[in-house]
């Protein structure tokens, strides 16, 4: 009989969903020096999949070079961006990729402890993950002298988040791990220098870590064959909204929105929000743009809106999200988002002047440069892009909207 897992394992894809056997990457790396691991990673050109797109090899190198007595590798599994659910698929169906990736990281940077910061709402499969870790310990893929490699000790623990979007931001995540309020830290210093408990720490997204075992086994050059020059490898996209086949897709970087929309059976599409609430809204006439760090960078959330959607309503939704989810520590984000939301509501009720709307866009630009963390810096994106791209619909009611 076909089990549920076998059915799911029918997922296919060029990189992440390609074949991999548990433990292979670990076996490979313990036989080579960590410099070679870093070299392979650098060759692959892997960049962070959590949104910021920082070169992973650079991040690891900075921590590997540090002489601190303790180091940490943290797997960011907070997956809070609206419309993202690809990390869940990796954790539930491909735990061998995530955890092997962490072990490789531990070996390379010299960490003895790995921590998974798991989104609170994912508690329902926490037991399954713990069981998996137990099995790894039984097979000496975790623990002391891993696979007989003298002195290579590493273990992984899982900690549950408690439901704040901002705790996915790496420094807020660390604060939260330390038991403080989930508020982003000042930078510099960066986590690679002063991270968890003040020690050098690598924070990587689930998908970033999941790419590592493939790179280790199949090589950086192989990885680089996929994707574009600046965006190597493939990406998981969480696709939702107005389409026939929503779900998680593995596509090479460089896929255009056209191709993507066709793949998922989207019809009458008016706009695509790429990157979740903090991403940008792409209108129909720009669907030839492609998904890659050099064009539309994204952590993987794609939300599709068809002609029946009211874009102002969509925007209101996003702004409500930020007003609630800002951690509230810095002025531009805490109060700025409230003002942008008020602005949207003013437009809705017709009680606005263009002068004031322009002032708010200006404010948005200040928020982009003066906020403390990525949340406040990206929260005006939707406001600015939706009001720009859907002017006709929103202000003159003669667009394609359903006003």
């Amino acid at each position, binding site marked *: 009989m076909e089990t549920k897992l076998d059915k799911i394992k029918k997922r296919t894809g060029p990189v992440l969903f390609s074949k991999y056997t548990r433990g292979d990457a670990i076996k490979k790396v313990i036989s080579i020096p960590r410099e070679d691991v870093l070299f392979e990673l650098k060759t692959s050109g892997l960049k962070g999949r959590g949104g910021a797109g920082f070169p992973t090899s650079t991040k690891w190198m900075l921590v590997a070079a540090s002489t601190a007595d303790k180091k940490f590798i943290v797997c960011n599994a907070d997956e809070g961006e609206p419309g993202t659910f690809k990390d869940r698929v990796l954790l539930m169906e491909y735990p061998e990729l995530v955890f092997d990736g962490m072990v490789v990281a531990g070996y390379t940077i010299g960490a003895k402890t790995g921590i998974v910061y798991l989104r609170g709402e994912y508690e329902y499969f926490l037991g399954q993950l713990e069981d998996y870790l137990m099995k790894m310990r039984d097979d000496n893929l975790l623990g002391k002298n891993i696979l007989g490699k003298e002195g290579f000790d590493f273990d992984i623990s899982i900690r549950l988040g408690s439901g704040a979007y901002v705790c996915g931001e790496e420094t807020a995540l660390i*604060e939260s791990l330390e038991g403080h309020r989930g508020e982003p830290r000042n930078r510099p*210093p960066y986590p690679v220098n*002063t991270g968890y408990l003040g020690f050098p720490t690598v924070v990587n997204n689930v998908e970033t870590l999941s790419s590592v075992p493939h790179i280790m086994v199949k090589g950086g050059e192989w990885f680089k064959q996929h994707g574009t020059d600046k965006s190597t490898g493939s990406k998981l996209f969480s696709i939702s909204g107005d389409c026939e086949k929503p779900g998680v897709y593995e596509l090479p970087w460089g896929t255009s929105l056209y191709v993507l929309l066709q793949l998922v059976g989207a019809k009458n599409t008016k706009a695509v929000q790429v990157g979740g609430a903090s991403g940008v809204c792409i209108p129909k006439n720009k669907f030839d743009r492609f998904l890659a760090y050099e064009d539309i960078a994204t952590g993987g959330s794609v939300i599709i809106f068809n002609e029946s959607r009211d874009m102002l309503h969509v925007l209101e939704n996003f702004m409500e999200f930020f007003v609630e*989810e800002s951690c509230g*520590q810095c002025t531009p984000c805490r109060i700025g988002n409230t003002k942008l939301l008020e602005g949207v509501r003013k437009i809705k009720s017709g009680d606005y002047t263009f002068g004031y709307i322009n002032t708010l866009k200006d404010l948005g630009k200040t928020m982009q440069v003066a*906020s403390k963390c990525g949340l406040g810096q990206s929260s005006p994106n939707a406001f600015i892009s939706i009001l720009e791209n859907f002017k006709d619909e929103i202000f003159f009611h003669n667009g394609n909207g359903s006003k």
Partner: protein
Amino acid sequence: MAKENNPRIPVSQQPFKVQKPEDTTTIGGTISIEINEKKVTVPFGATILEACKENQIHVPTLCHHPDLCVAGVCRICVVEVDGMRTLQTSCTFPITSPIKIHTSTPMVRKARRHIIDLLLSEHYGECYSCFRNENCELQTLAKEYGVDNYTFGHITTPKFQVDRSSASVVRDMNKCILCKRCVRTCIDLQEVGCLEAIDRGHETHVGTFLDKPLSDVICINCGQCINRCPTGALRANDPSDQIWNAIDDPTKHVVIQTAPSPRAAIGEEFGIEPGQSFTGELNTALKRIGFDKVFDTNYTADLTIMEEGTELLNRLKKALVDKDESVKLPQFTSCSPGWIKFIEHFYPEYLDYLSTAKSPQQMFGAITKTFYAKEAKINPEDIVTVALMPCSAKKFECNRPEMNSSGFKDVDYGLTTREMAKMIKEAGIYLPEMPKSHFDDPFGDASGAGLIFGATGGVMEAALRTVYELVTGREVPFKNLNITPCRGFEGIKQASVKLENCVEAYKFLEGVEVKFIVAHGTANATKVMEMLRKGELNDVHFVEIMACPGGCLGGGGQPIPTSEEIRTKRAQAIYAEDESLELRKSHENPHVKLLYEKFLTEGPCSKLSHQLLHTHYTKRGKFIL
């Protein structure tokens, strides 16, 4: 202020540990950078803010405070740094590479205006009815940046109820700009931690545990948060209207006692540079306002030394001669009500180590309504006692239920330096112009030993001047009686004095090395208490603790702003005045001697003095239901 690793402070707020690379750009620990196209050299690891200050460039700040760890939350101090996509906050950014900084570009100015405008849009309060009017960092910035038309609107109804539950601190969160200086003061400087940001996003506000009233949490009433709040969101509980009423009531005899610290700082409220005392001028002003008598708290400070010093000698005798193992040593001072509430909450099991002597304020109240009432032939019921204090915790102290040993409320009102300055101004008096005058009899002018109670280490120094002389018959062996190991702002000071050639009555102390510790700020008190817990203070005899950084001169009722620089100047003023006095030892105060002759005839620590001048404490614990 030296800050060590405190696990209760997020790592982000702890000072940035700069790792110095050994390359050529850092010769001699300095680094060359550019600020506004000008090449300058600054210390490696300095923040942009420090670098700018050193080069006479003013960068505005709100959440930054020189006494506190960094926050980086208001964002007003942003500047442009070449090569960085976003603006950088100068208060948090350590300079470790040869960067180019621009402090006044269109983008920077616009961002700052936006930030001020955003703050004003949520700021419910009107400057003309605010005690921080003309001394408010938000107001100043709005003026400097020409933010004058509420671009983003203005809140018209209050969001929060004003919390007046505490006897000491009033919290009006409608004026709060969430700079979190109070939060950091409470946890970082004071290690109390009763304030924290609560909720998230637009609902974020500073509150207490479960948003309880301040009176119901572990607040020690030190008022340090008030002194560091940039706006009028925090203020002391002001009794000046009741005091005016008492002054205006012809049937009331209103006396005021003035503590040593207010006189060394009140000039600041009148635009005078810190560091000048106005003792005589203040006496005149108070009499002109209408106080019937103006007394010097230093008198009861001298009395405190007699009582507390005797208590210490008694404890030493019990321990050394009677070999009584139940005696608690070291003896801790008890004159700082913030410290008292701190130990009651955090170390209730050690209350027996405290001296039972009341604070000078409370002694004065008790003496006024008994001895003075009798001498002056006034019904104590008709006496209103006011205490001019540098302190907000004194307001709580005088309301403690046990503080009525005279049969009445010993001290009716505690008034802060700031509130006094306001009353003086309201009376149409410009303090610095006043002629000087003396304190009133029967207590007269007190000793310099009482005066230095205002600075951290002062009680210790005063006690040593007396105890040493009582025990050996000689003056303390320090030049000009200045016991320098007691002075300065180091967090915890330790020293000792050897007792030799003791007089007959104190032969049991022959050769004893009296060891003492002085600490200020309750964060340092915590360290001392942990030493006590670990048994590291077994050979220490006497510990002075003041709740406020710098001692009373840095009290929660003193003029705003405060910084180590300002506190240093106030301390200098106090020590200079001490040196200028003839009378510098508590036991030589003739008025104190008189009190023991006429009233407390059985001497210090006798039955009557215990009834009037000593007290007991309450075990409170950390969890309040």
